[in-house]
């Protein structure tokens, strides 16, 4: 059979599911039996789309412009990545904080009827003339995908005019996939095709590619780099705050690993196939167990298994008394977790360090990796609800209101308004990862629980848009199996 090129659509791989409401036990049994079906919702509220992830993944690259061939609203969601970029620069000591150069072609009705290619050509020309960047990324959108504008051809023809700028088209039409992480894959596929070009370069001893998602703070970056340097590795931290040169160095690495489980897993597979770079794909280093696992994973790839055990033992000795202090403050509290696929499972394992009890978990996708985590969680927590949902705040508020957790860890937008003490685990500004991040996060959760005044007051003064009757309903009422 001919080798099928991975399209960047995560659903194309078997065993990836979205939209499901179940319990931890049930989901793991059904997945084992192969009984889980891809479902849909007859009512859905918001969805994180691929384009935003593609853009967010590259937003902090040096000397680049980002041209979004889309209606204006599509780039609105990039606000989070822009914020992260600005704050990230301050943390990194940049005095003159820059905005990413984000240009949108503003596809409108006329473009839909008569084609939007002229607008894109103009946008590319203007942005290259104005900024003279090294890299110009062109992103597709739902609208440009529907009308079928050929961005590859436009980029190719304009490339001849602008030899100093590398034009990179990225196919991230939002409707292609319901698994938003496909957006990262789309970006990496284009990077491989247009920047790395399958060219093998000389290996650099001890260089490790560290793929980091958007939401990793500078403190986390330093912690990860510290941990890897203890193993004698040099880190090529990509794609956040990197540059064309650093991206070009990807094939020179000895090994690669990713901070987030879902961020670069497909790309690391490609790197192994195309450039013989072995990779470690384990978990996200949040919590003692996961950090150990992540650390051992990468150490194994670079053949430092003995060294890593010594370091882990040393770190444990340092950290365990401190974790015990936090555990005394958090023991037995009931928690609801919501976050990206990698992070929410990592966070669920983390709360075990603190002796907390998991009552509910919301995560966008379910797959083989999630199954491993769920089996592990089922061993610790006897009964918890699992909601496979990309966003869908209405289900979350129903569940949180029903389960009445003592604490909420994850994306706190809505739970905060229900008066539950919340801790943001997707915090791209403060430490969450590694051994030191664990302490910070634990103390943050404990502080929140002891002083929930902000959430209490917020709940008293704000109202969510749902009727009381919705809170009585089955939270998974709108999930329809088989996608009808």
């Amino acid at each position, binding site marked *: 059979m001919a080798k099928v090129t991975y399209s960047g659509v995560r659903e194309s791989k078997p065993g990836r599911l979205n939209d499901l409401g179940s319990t931890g036990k049930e989901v793991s049994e059904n997945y084992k039996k192969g009984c889980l079906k891809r479902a849909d919702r007859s009512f859905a509220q918001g969805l994180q789309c691929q384009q935003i992830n593609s853009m967010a993944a590259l937003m902090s690259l040096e000397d680049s412009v980002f041209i979004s061939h889309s209606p204006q609203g599509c780039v609105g969601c990039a606000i989070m990545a822009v914020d992260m970029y600005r704050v990230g620069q301050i943390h990194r000591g940049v005095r003159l904080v820059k905005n990413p150069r984000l240009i949108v072609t503003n596809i409108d*009705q*006329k473009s*839909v*009827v*008569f084609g939007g290619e002229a607008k894109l050509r103009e946008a590319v020309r203007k942005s290259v003339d104005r900024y003279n960047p090294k890299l110009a990324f062109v992103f597709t959108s739902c609208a440009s995908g*529907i*009308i*079928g504008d050929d961005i590859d051809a436009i980029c190719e023809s304009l490339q001849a005019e602008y030899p100093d700028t590398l034009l990179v088209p990225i196919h991230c039409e939002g409707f292609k996939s319901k698994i938003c992480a496909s957006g990262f894959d789309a970006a990496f596929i284009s990077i491989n095709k247009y920047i790395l070009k399958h060219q093998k370069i000389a290996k650099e001893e001890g260089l490790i590619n560290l793929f980091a998602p958007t939401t990793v703070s500078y403190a986390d970056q330093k912690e990860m780099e510290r941990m890897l340097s203890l193993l004698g590795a040099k880190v090529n931290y990509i794609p956040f705050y990197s540059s064309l040169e650093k991206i070009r160095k990807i094939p020179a690495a000895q090994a690669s690993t990713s901070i987030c489980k879902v961020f670069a897993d497909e790309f690391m597979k490609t790197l192994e196939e195309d450039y013989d770079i072995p990779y470690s794909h384990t978990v996200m280093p949040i919590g003692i167990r996961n950090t150990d696992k992540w650390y051992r994973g990468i150490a194994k790839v670079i053949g430092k298994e003995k060294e890593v055990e010594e370091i882990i033992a040393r770190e444990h000795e340092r950290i365990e008394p401190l974790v015990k202090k936090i555990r005394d403050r958090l023991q037995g509290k009931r928690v609801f977790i919501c976050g990206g696929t990698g992070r929410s499972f990592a966070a669920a394992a983390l709360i075990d360090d603190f002796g907390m009890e998991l009552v509910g978990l919301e995560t966008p996708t379910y797959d083989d990796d999630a199954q491993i985590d769920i089996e592990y969680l089922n061993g610790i927590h006897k009964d918890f609800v699992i909601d496979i949902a990309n966003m869908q705040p209405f289900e979350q508020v129903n569940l949180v209101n029903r389960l009445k957790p003592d604490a909420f860890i994850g994306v706190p937008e809505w739970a905060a308004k229900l008066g539950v003490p919340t801790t943001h685990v997707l915090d791209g500004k403060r430490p969450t990862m590694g051994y030191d991040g664990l302490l910070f996060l634990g103390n943050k959760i404990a502080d929140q629980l002891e002083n929930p005044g902000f959430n209490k007051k917020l709940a008293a003064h704000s109202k969510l848009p749902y009727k009381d009757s919705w809170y009585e309903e089955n939270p998974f009422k709108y999930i329809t199996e088989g996608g009808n």
Partner: protein
Amino acid sequence: MAYYIAIGSSDGINTDLKFGEVEKFLIYKVEGTDYELYEKREVADADGFAAKCGDKNGCSGSGHGCGGGEEVAAKVTAIEDCRAVVCKKIGFQAQKQFEKRAISVFDIETTITDALDKIAGYYNKIDNNRSLRS
């Protein structure tokens, strides 16, 4: 359901007039993807709109255009039963006035048949909840 599209054309073949230059709009009646010329609608009197601007060749003269004036309002009102208007160029103020009345604006220089084929095809699909991709 049938609807109308107003076109600014000097020769009945091309959409070659700016909105300000149009004295007679060609009103096409569209049903599904079929269309026919329904009427020629007069929108300005003999020494009309363009003359008052002092620029026979359109509205670019003063740099202010005829934006927002009563003439624009009258002209917009004259074709407000249409679903869309097609001209070579349509100024910002006039576009806003059409937008308020939920009339689509297509400022494009092409042939009338090309414009109508594409616009009627587009409306036909969205009215019947069909994908624009097919």
